[in-house]
């Protein structure tokens, strides 16, 4: 691995001006992704995970905009680039995989046309070469009879095959970074397993950095190297996937893990976090999680939550849970 991470997000703030005041769907978020690494980003709906991904690839819908912080791609700032410069980067340096494969493909073009267009846009190759590459790309993602299927339209593929086409499209110009936003949420379990295995294999082989946005903790556990947990626009916890999932230090991560049915196996009731995530327009004072936190103290209600860097680099919490409490409980 090189010293410069492929993606480096520094103190990113995204704001949306509304009639009722300024909303901050992404608030002071910082993380790196190395080449060949998969960073899982988890959180509930409205936590800002997709918004972070969209900010990185420059697809924020106005009026949402980046108001401070930096995004560095292989050390180069990209947060202040114009539309055309970003357009050249997208596809070439950054690939995207969205949740719904049907809406991310053009229904009026064959998959071959869409692939060759992307390849020719970013690589200096002839029409024939682009087509050959397109066939190779489809073969690589496991589409049977790729040279015949290249002339099919998106609606002629099943959901899983369509998502394979989207992955081929995201990787065909050989990007350094892939942002996968809930890539398997619309798919069945068995197809999900196929797609995740494919994504993991391709990224490892090519040393692509992946930002995997999902709400499924099981998918994260199996695919990610590190995981970032988001809550109300802020990073709650960041660390190695095994440490974070088995030994959470932020009470929110702990609650999230405990409320999955698997973690409560054998219990009659699931452990639950009381309440719901606050709306962005009505964030509580202090740490945004304190009204739902069983460990909240006075400081949590008054002082804004700390950032990860000002704590121990792991959990953004004034009173992080002890790492060894599970062993204590067992002893």
């Amino acid at each position: 691995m090189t010293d410069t991470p492929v993606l480096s997000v520094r103190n990113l703030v995204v704001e949306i001006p509304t009639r009722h005041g300024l909303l901050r769907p992404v608030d002071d978020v910082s993380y790196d992704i190395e080449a060949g690494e998969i960073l899982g980003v988890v959180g509930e709906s409205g936590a800002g995970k997709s918004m972070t991904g969209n900010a990185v690839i420059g697809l924020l819908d106005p009026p949402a905009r980046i108001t401070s912080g930096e995004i560095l791609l292989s050390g180069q700032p990209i947060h202040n680039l114009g539309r055309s410069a970003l357009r050249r980067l997208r596809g070439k340096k950054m690939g995207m995989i969205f949740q719904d494969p049907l809406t991310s493909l053009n229904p009026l073009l064959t998959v071959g046309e869409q692939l060759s267009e992307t390849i020719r846009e970013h690589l200096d190759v002839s029409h024939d070469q682009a087509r050959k590459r397109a066939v190779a790309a489809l073969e690589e993602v496991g589409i049977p009879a790729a040279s015949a299927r290249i002339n099919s339209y998106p609606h002629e593929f099943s959901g899983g095959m369509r998502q394979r086409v989207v992955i081929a499209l995201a990787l065909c110009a050989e990007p350094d970074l892939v942002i996968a936003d809930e890539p398997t949420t619309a798919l069945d379990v068995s197809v999900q397993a196929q797609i995740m295995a494919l994504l993991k294999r391709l990224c490892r082989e090519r040393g692509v950095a992946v930002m995997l946005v999902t709400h499924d903790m099981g998918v994260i556990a199996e695919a990610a190297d590190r995981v970032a947990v988001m809550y109300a626009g802020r990073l709650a916890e960041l660390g190695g996937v095994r440490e974070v999932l088995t030994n959470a230090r932020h009470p929110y991560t702990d609650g999230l893990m405990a409320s999955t049915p698997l973690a409560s196996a054998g219990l009659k009731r699931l452990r639950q976090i009381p309440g719901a995530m606050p709306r962005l327009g009505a964030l509580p004072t202090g740490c945004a999680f304190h009204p739902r936190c069983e460990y909240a103290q006075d400081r949590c209600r008054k002082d804004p939550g700390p950032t990860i860097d000002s704590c121990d680099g792991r959990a953004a919490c004034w009173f992080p849970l002890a790492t060894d409490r599970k062993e204590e409980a067992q002893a």
Partner: protein
Amino acid sequence: MSAIIKVEHLTRVFDVSKPLLNRVIERLPRALLTAVSDVSFEIEENSVYALVGESGSGKSTIGKIMVGLVAPTEGSVQISGVDLASETDAAKIEAVRSEIQMIFQDPFASLNPRWRVRDVIAEPVAAKGGDTTGLAEKLLEQVGLSAADAGKYPHEFSGGQRQRICIARALASNPRIIVCDEPTSALDVSVQAQVLNLMSDLREELGLTYLFISHDLTVVQHMADRIGVLYLGRLVEEAPRDVLFNDPKHPYTQMLFAAAPKMDGFGREIEAPKGEIPDAINPPTGCAFHPRCPLAVERCSRERPEMRNIGKTRVACHMAE
């Protein structure tokens, strides 16, 4: 305990043919989609029976047949001994209909945005001319919302709260059976836990029976007493929960369990399942799972396996033992 619901040889065929004129001009055959095919099972009173399966397995169709939203093509569903499709005594039908209610997947689509929560919840009783004074308020408190919420509109609530409203509406007519079609798929994990806990509590307080339809194995493992696994409209395996999860007999069930992401599966490399669910209009001959099955032999492509009992499990597979 006795069976409150008896499903026998249930089959539902949908005609998905093109319009007649197109069929004549393009010389196309009729296209018939068998969504549910020869499914039989029983649900005991005050238990949770779960149907699991991937998209197109027919689990939602069975739920809809159960509450009478879809009529069966063949076979029957008996609720407390009454078959809604063939019963002629109107009083009996009426009585059974208020005994069974349904909760849908999407709490955003299943509440009328123009109705106040009070009217939404009281509707099942109001529609039959019953007395609804204070009913909505009582039910709202029972599902963990406040009585004052009765005057609000659905858009003022979050997804989890809306699903609570749907549960309150389902409880309004004092049902004994609730069909839940993916009740928590649209919800976040922490909210899902709240709703599942509420459903468990209500089951105990009110002695409810649930038919729980889901694709999420972890949720099913938590909620169900007995589980039926569906593949392409057929029941392939059925067993009590612990038996099924400890010792799945059918290769499809085994594949599903292996493919489901595990919370402790760090860096797990799995043999991804082969193939995809086949076309339901032209299903494979013999056992519908044989093209994807690691155990398949020649017999599987010829002969459809019958349901047979192995221990506490009912399984439809030639090779299972």
